């Protein structure tokens, strides 16, 4: 394993340089580098650094989203090697995200997903216009720590309540934390429908998610 390639991967992730990042990952794997080390000492370090840069206003959200996209691509390369080696992924927490039934506006959810990935969460995105049943199935199958639901329209926000009621009915509500977001969503609404968390924007969503799981912010 070469430190040169580790640093190349860190820098590539911070700058969202796809070509360089994928090349470095492939080179590290070819060199027989420990996938756990690649994930922890290169990829996680880079995303932590990027998150700190974002907090200081040194990078903007599109840069974070682009880096998160590259992170996923690199992770897809590393993961088979990790699993083959019998290793376990170190993650902050497991999150399922969905934009609720009837709503096609998923930009905010996508931003939240990118920011969560940057913070080390494993994110499964169920997409937009998501049927309640699909969310229930995913909760059963993936056993996430958090379910995050977005809705932009006043006409679709009530679906967040529908999903929470369904989770309760299926006995799943106590097994996950539920977070809600979207332009018309407020803390009052979150309280009213019994959600565990609410955030007014993507950055805040990461802090609240960490707080819900008792992870240091």
């Amino acid at each position, binding site marked *: 394993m070469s430190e040169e390639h580790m640093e190349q991967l860190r820098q590539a992730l911070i700058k969202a340089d796809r070509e360089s990042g994928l090349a470095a990952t492939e080179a590290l794997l070819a060199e027989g580098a420990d996938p756990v080390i690649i994930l922890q000492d290169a990829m996680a370090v880079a995303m932590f650094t990027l998150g700190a840069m974002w907090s200081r206003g040194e990078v*903007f959200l599109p840069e974070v989203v682009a880096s998160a996209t590259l992170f996923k691509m690199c992770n897809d390369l590393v993961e088979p090697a990790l699993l083959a080696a019998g290793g376990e992924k170190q993650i902050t927490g497991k999150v399922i995200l969905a934009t609720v039934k009837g709503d096609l506006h998923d*930009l905010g959810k996508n931003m939240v997903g990118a920011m969560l990935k940057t913070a080390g969460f494993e994110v499964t995105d169920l997409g937009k216009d998501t049927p309640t049943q699909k969310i229930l199935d995913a909760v059963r199958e993936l056993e996430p720590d958090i379910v995050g639901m977005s809705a932009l329209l006043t*006409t679709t*926000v009530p679906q967040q309540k529908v999903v929470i009621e369904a989770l309760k009915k299926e006995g799943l509500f106590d097994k996950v934390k539920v977070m809600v977001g979207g332009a018309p969503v407020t803390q*009052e609404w979150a309280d009213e429908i019994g959600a565990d968390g609410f955030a007014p924007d993507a950055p805040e969503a990461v802090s609240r998610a960490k707080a819900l799981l008792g992870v240091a912010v």
Partner: protein
Amino acid sequence: MADREIRTVTHRTPPLDIMPDEAVAAIRDATTEVLERTGIEVRSRAILAQLGAAGAVIDEETGRARFPREVQAGALTTVPPDLPLASREPGLDIVLDGTRGYLGVDGNAAEVVDLDTDQRRASSKADVAAGTLIGDALPQIGYIWQPAVSREMPVPSEPLHNLEANLNNTGKHIVMMTAVTPEQAEASAEMAAVAVGGATALRERPILSAFQCSVSPLVYDGGPLAAAVEFAKAGVPSGFMVMPILGATAPITRAGTMVVNNAEVIGGVIAHQLLAPGARTFYASAVTTMDLWSGAANCGGPEDLVFQMANAQLARAYGLRSMVGTFATGSKTSDWQGGVENGLSGFASWISGVDMASGAGLLYAARVFSAAQLILDAELWDLVCSTSEGVRGWDAESLAVDVIDAVQPGGHFLDQDHTLTHMREVWQSKMFHRGNWEDWEANGRPVSKDRAVERAREILETHTPYPLPDGAADTIRAIVERFEDEHVEAA
């Protein structure tokens, strides 16, 4: 009430074109290419089939409708040149002939600033009614959206409750924002018809218009397009209102965002014309930018100002009337940021020749309605209206040489008949504090917002809207109830 009239900006002839002709041509060419090559996603198989029959190239798998350029050109020729938008109260029609611009009450805020507590809370039907009533009382308001949302009502009938609150509280022209299914459109048109004296009267004098929204980039849900067709059957014009966000749901460049913006409006208009040839329509946009750090929508800043002006110019290029997002500061209260953003925004919509500026009363990038902000925005519009009148005249009376000679060097004009005659032409602020420092201190250092809150309360206590015809309110109520019987599942 007979002497009521709407305060409008006087447009320059010609208005200011923010883009050179070649930029307009380039954006139009790019739009044609996007609609032909990328197309728009339409989430309805039935509508895709109809668009296909009318000449669009349909990809059923992706739900994509692509419009060959000759189909685009053909569809745009069937748009009627006129756009009559009537008022129920006599004398308050929206007259769109390019000489003037109107301000509307903005809308669909999920939350409001409570007039008593000054705190943000979820909106209700009572807020729709109150915002409408204040808008009705203000001469600067030409037309009215649904300022807030009847959130306590069932989702399917919510738009109808909003419209009911409108109809009961204003005689001005109403623009329906959220009738997004054919059933909601049909019921809305029926309610408006009752208010104006029947379906034929509504067709002749549409006191209601509507708009439908895209989901940026380049998606139309099936319901809104079907609703626009339903409205056309009743003679209710339907514009296409788009809200792409620079950097997020549109390219990061100003020109690229305008291409997505334009492709969504023109794509909507083309689809509408293919489905309902000859339907009245208009060009509507509230495009904005993304805050690069947090990802939130900004609604305020130089890009927004450029987009407002570019939208007005593009609408003219297509021979369409424009409805352009104006005001709606990103500020959370009626403060310096709100004043700067909205002041420049009002000025930009005037100088670029926007036909309908939407609109007044919202804070937090159009998410929260504030009655005080509505009062302040109306005052701001009044200031722009007065500015737009220019020097007003240069005849002998205006040039005032005789009075100047009568006063002589070193005198004053205070007591001249000429002064008394024209004194009330000088713009008077109701919201600015123009008294002395001592009074201001003695009164507890009031800010404009405090005066606006007082004015809003006063209007709510005293203003009476133009009455509905006898029995109309009950009939409108019955339509809402019938709709709920048919479309709202029992809880």
